[in-house]
């Protein structure tokens, strides 16, 4: 199977490329990148071909693409790939505007191509185990979730609003939201959120708190802050404390690591050793394309999580609880 990568703007493209190269059934058949230098470098690194012209890449005999451009460019790249009937794995968030997400989902349906949104955390073995425990009712009825998706400030285009669509809230709420929707099979009823820029001198928010209620009455808090200091031993975290009537469960998706006290670089570093969740995501996408089945993580999953982010921004602006609007597809 021939798969191409559209843009290496998002660093996840690197691990997706590795997954494609490592999978004996796939070939990283081409790379397009607006940044020619980066495109050439990546093509060389992964033994692929750089295309300066995206149409030319899409006219080739590739089966699918992985879109890792800046958030605002997801729309145009997904629409273009769909128009060439290529299946698509799109980096999260699906888009920066709800209408864009809907247009992308509709276009993929019309062209009969798969649109999968990249929420790799679903593929972490610890998260899959938690999903099993919750769904089996082992901790009883779920009543609350206290979650974090912290990070260090990523810099680059992530902090340029015109490319990212927003800061830490845009970057981090969606991961937790996707896990909650998937595990609890529930939707958000209302959201209250506040954001601010307190850690860095940047244009976008770098911290905040989100408090929401699901339709079932489960209460949830999400901390999406880029509050991890420079000296933190890793990039960030994904943690959830899930409170059930019969038990409470805490999961730290990146807990499986060796701790390296690195004198050479003057750092303490976490060295993860669990199975690579990005590889799990890419392999699942490949299986979807091969079997022609509905993706495990759909465009609608991308839209529903984006709706929560947008409601959170609205709430921050109004300093009021916002009742969620779910858009028809």
């Amino acid at each position: 199977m021939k798969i191409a990568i559209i843009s290496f703007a998002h660093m996840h493209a690197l691990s997706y490329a590795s997954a494609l190269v490592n999978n004996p059934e796939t070939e990283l058949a081409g790379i397009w990148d607006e940044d020619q230098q980066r495109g050439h470098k990546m093509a060389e690194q992964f033994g692929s071909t750089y295309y300066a012209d995206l149409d030319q890449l899409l006219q080739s005999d590739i089966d699918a693409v992985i879109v890792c451009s800046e958030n605002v460019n997801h729309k145009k790249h997904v629409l273009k790939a769909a128009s060439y009937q290529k299946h698509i794995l799109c980096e999260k968030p699906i888009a920066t505007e709800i209408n864009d997400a809907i247009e992308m989902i509709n276009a993929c349906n019309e062209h009969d191509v798969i649109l999968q949104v990249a929420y790799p955390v679903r593929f972490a073995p610890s998260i899959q185990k938690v999903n099993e425990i919750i769904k089996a009712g082992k901790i009883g009825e779920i009543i609350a979730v206290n979650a974090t998706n912290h990070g260090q400030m990523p810099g680059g285009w992530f902090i340029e609003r015109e490319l990212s669509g927003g800061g830490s809230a845009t970057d981090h709420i969606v991961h937790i939201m996707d896990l909650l929707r998937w595990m609890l099979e529930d939707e958000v009823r209302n959201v209250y959120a506040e954001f601010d820029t307190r850690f860095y001198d940047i244009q976008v928010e770098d911290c905040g708190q989100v408090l929401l209620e699901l339709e079932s009455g489960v209460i949830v808090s999400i901390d999406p802050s880029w509050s991890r200091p420079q000296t933190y031993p890793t990039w960030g975290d994904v943690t959830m404390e899930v409170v059930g009537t019969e038990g409470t469960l805490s999961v730290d998706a990146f807990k499986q690591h060796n701790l390296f006290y690195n004198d050479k670089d003057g750092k303490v570093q976490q060295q993860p050793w669990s199975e690579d969740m990005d590889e799990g995501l890419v392999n699942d996408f490949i299986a979807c394309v091969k079997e022609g089945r509905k993706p495990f993580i759909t465009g609608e999953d991308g839209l529903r999580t984006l709706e929560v982010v947008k409601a959170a921004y609205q709430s921050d602006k109004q300093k009021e609880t916002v009742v969620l609007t779910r858009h028809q597809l």
Partner: protein
Amino acid sequence: MINLAIISENHERVHEWMKIEHVDIAAILLTEGVDSNQIPKELKHKLVHKPEDILSMDVDLVDLCVPAQVKPDMIRQLYKEGLHIFTETPLATDANLAATLYKECKDKMVGLYVGNTIRFSPEFLEARKHVENGQLGRTGVNRISSKDKHPGDNADIFLELGAPVFDWLYWTFGEVERVIAKQVQKQRKDGSPVEYALIDLRHEDQTFSHVELSWAGSEKQMSFELTGNQGMLENDSKNSQPIVVEGAADIALEEQILGKTAIQRELDHVVQVIKQSQKPIVTTEDAIKAVKITDAVKKSVSTGQPVELKEGVIL
């Protein structure tokens, strides 16, 4: 020496006071249902049955260790000129009542002091010092959690678990401008209660404080994570135990392995406040404010909307 009367809903309090210097335990009043057999033999003859018994004795200080709901009644039964009353935060179930009690005590020449054990816990004191010294830089997002097993009665999670935390946050990060809070109360299959609450406070300096209160687990645990633009400070009581024992079930380790625990430090301070007429660490204003924040949190739970405060007053 200070002559002390203890009014308590648990016998542990008596054991704590026995470790404090310059104190004579003159009277012990246990609330209904507390087993008096747990009181050490040498103090059994100090047991009394009603607050009036205390008033007829030579007592300097009363330690009132009962739920907030019954504190006002108890305090009002102890109005005797020159008496000092000490109680853990919260002073009352709402801020107006707390302020009224202060006023009444002042009028009756009764000293009223409120404590908060967290303010005497070394890990929290160290953390506060870090914030005050500016070692975290500009503070950003705090996460703090307090868990315990459900007390099993009609106890109020915001008053019992929340107020001490709100007090420490207010003491360390300043006035609270806005709160939003959510709470869930359910029952286990066996009918026992489970309760959990999530609260976000926004301080006037715009620092965020996220508070988790849980009566869903089986043991006491507190943790905090304080972040600023120059660093982060974290602590978890579960990971701070210097001694871990496996097997050997007859070894009972205290909650805090310290020469002087937070409670002892707090009670020492109370004795000093009364003996030396020192200014108490928790001021009248602080004690009322802790209840005001709690009032705002409960209001937010019932309305589902944020509640604004101005200089500690709900708008």
